[in-house]
């Protein structure tokens, strides 16, 4: 249905970004992203031969500092923000689930 990005590509990009787009939402996102990527492509009109890309406009260059550990003494406050903790650690679910694809 589209030219710039297909539903399969949107699914793939979502997977890369650790997002799940439900099947019934896929056409909606695909149509919108397609339109926006169409706008992105207008940049091909611009002659950028030999033009350096700009990744930052900071006036600072390669700022170095000592690598010194700093104890903020806020262990409990940090743990209070974690959704699941046990014995002063952050708990996570099984990392590898034999039964488990994500679908």
């Amino acid at each position: 249905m589209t030219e710039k990005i297909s539903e399969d590509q949107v699914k793939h990009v979502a997977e890369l970004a650790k997002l799940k787009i439900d099947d019934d939402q896929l056409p909606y996102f695909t149509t919108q992203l397609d339109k926006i990527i169409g706008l992105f492509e207008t940049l091909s009109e611009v002659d950028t031969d030999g033009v350096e890309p700009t990744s930052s406009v900071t006036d600072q260059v390669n700022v170095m500092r000592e690598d010194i550990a700093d104890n903020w003494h806020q262990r409990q406050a940090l743990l209070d923000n974690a959704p699941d903790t046990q014995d002063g650690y952050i708990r996570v679910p099984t990392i590898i689930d034999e039964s488990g694809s994500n679908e």
Partner: protein
Amino acid sequence: MNYFNQSLTSIHKQLVDKDISAEELTNQTLKNIKQVDGDINAFLTLDEDGALAQAKQLDENGIEPDNLLSGMPVAIKDNIVTKGLKTTAASKILENFTPIYDATAAAKMKKLGTIAVGKTNMDEFAMGGSTENSAFKITHNPWDKTKVPGGSSGGSAAAVAAGEVIAALGSDTGGSIRQPASFNGVVGMKPTYGRVSRWGLIAFGSSLDQIGPITRNVADNATLLNAIAGHDDHDLTSSTKEVPDFTSTLKKGVKGLRIGIPSEFMAQGLDDDVKKVVNETAETFKKLGATVDEVSLPHTKYGVAAYYIISSSEASSNLQRFDGIRYGRRAKNVKNLDDLYIKSRSEGFGDEVKRRIMLGTFSLSAGFYDAYFKKAAQVRTLMINDFTNVFKDFDLILAPTAPTPAYGIGEDVSDPMTMYMNDVLTLPVNLAGLPGMSVPAGFSKGLPVGVQLIGRPYDELTVYQAGNAFEQATDFAKQTPKMGGNN
């Protein structure tokens, strides 16, 4: 206390003269917010106990007579972290997040004695231009409650416009301070990239983001920038350049100042009333002794594409940290770790944030990087060169802030492209890292219209100087909204 017809100076005098204590002022501010904010919805979180405790302490220590910010209640956008005070960036994924430190800008303000009464609503992760992308509430424009307050700093701008606070901090990645300032008839400054530390600003587009002040007048704005500017070891992109006193040139006037209006900014798509306001502003500057000429920024029309590639790419990287492990929302009923990441993110992010993450991931992905991200970064260079050329012969750029006045709630959300095009006049300033300020400059059918003053890198002084001269010569900044008898 509502803050209409007040300034930092006028309130400070009352505090110093002990006509009012910091505690009383804070109490009255909270009372006024409760009265007004039911209609405006500018605030996501109020910190009554914390604010009053801080105010009491300031009263005990004594208001500092030479410090305009001593004992001054303010509001802070909810993507600027505040120690012990819930900070959500208006996202469900952070709905229970309480930071353990203050952002540098917030810490500097606090150190000078400002009292943060609460956190303001915004588009989720600052992605949007109407504050309608908040996961929690819709903010209403105080001038017309059926209209949006702009965004993403819509809560901060509406809170100042509605007289709830005298000043607020916002953040601006592609216009998020200036456009809501325009929509709400207040003054909003996006400083030069690197002028203000981004430490503790929840990152969206790290090469574009800046924190800046939103106030009722130009002098107050300069005072606030004085407070938050300067190098910070926690943000290595923050500049080590000396920070001048931004209030020092306010009274200098604009005689001899060379102002350019980019013809591309006045082209089709610009609302007739907005165009008229810009032309009238130019006339005012001429009367005040400046010269005004047409200039050209030829790559303007490619700005939206370049900006949305770059900002979305940076966002897709920055927002990887939200995975439901250490803080934030964690999905239930997950099979394994990967499933936890995916479900937490898919449930926690709103549609616009998902769109940006996917656009960024796409633009950076193998096979597309050169055509999208690199190309956009090259076009960015050309846009910077355009500005550099203009600033060889001009001291300041005058332009409309937004193509239209505030539009209706619900009008724009269905089509992201329309929303993105609305940023066309503000985002070039972020791409080039320049200082830009929106000041109230007129009205269209009862709604405020702002104009943008854009300076050379690190030349906020000239921006404030011209802004103040204009403000003194006109009375737009003195107008206040009529909010159904609630104020």
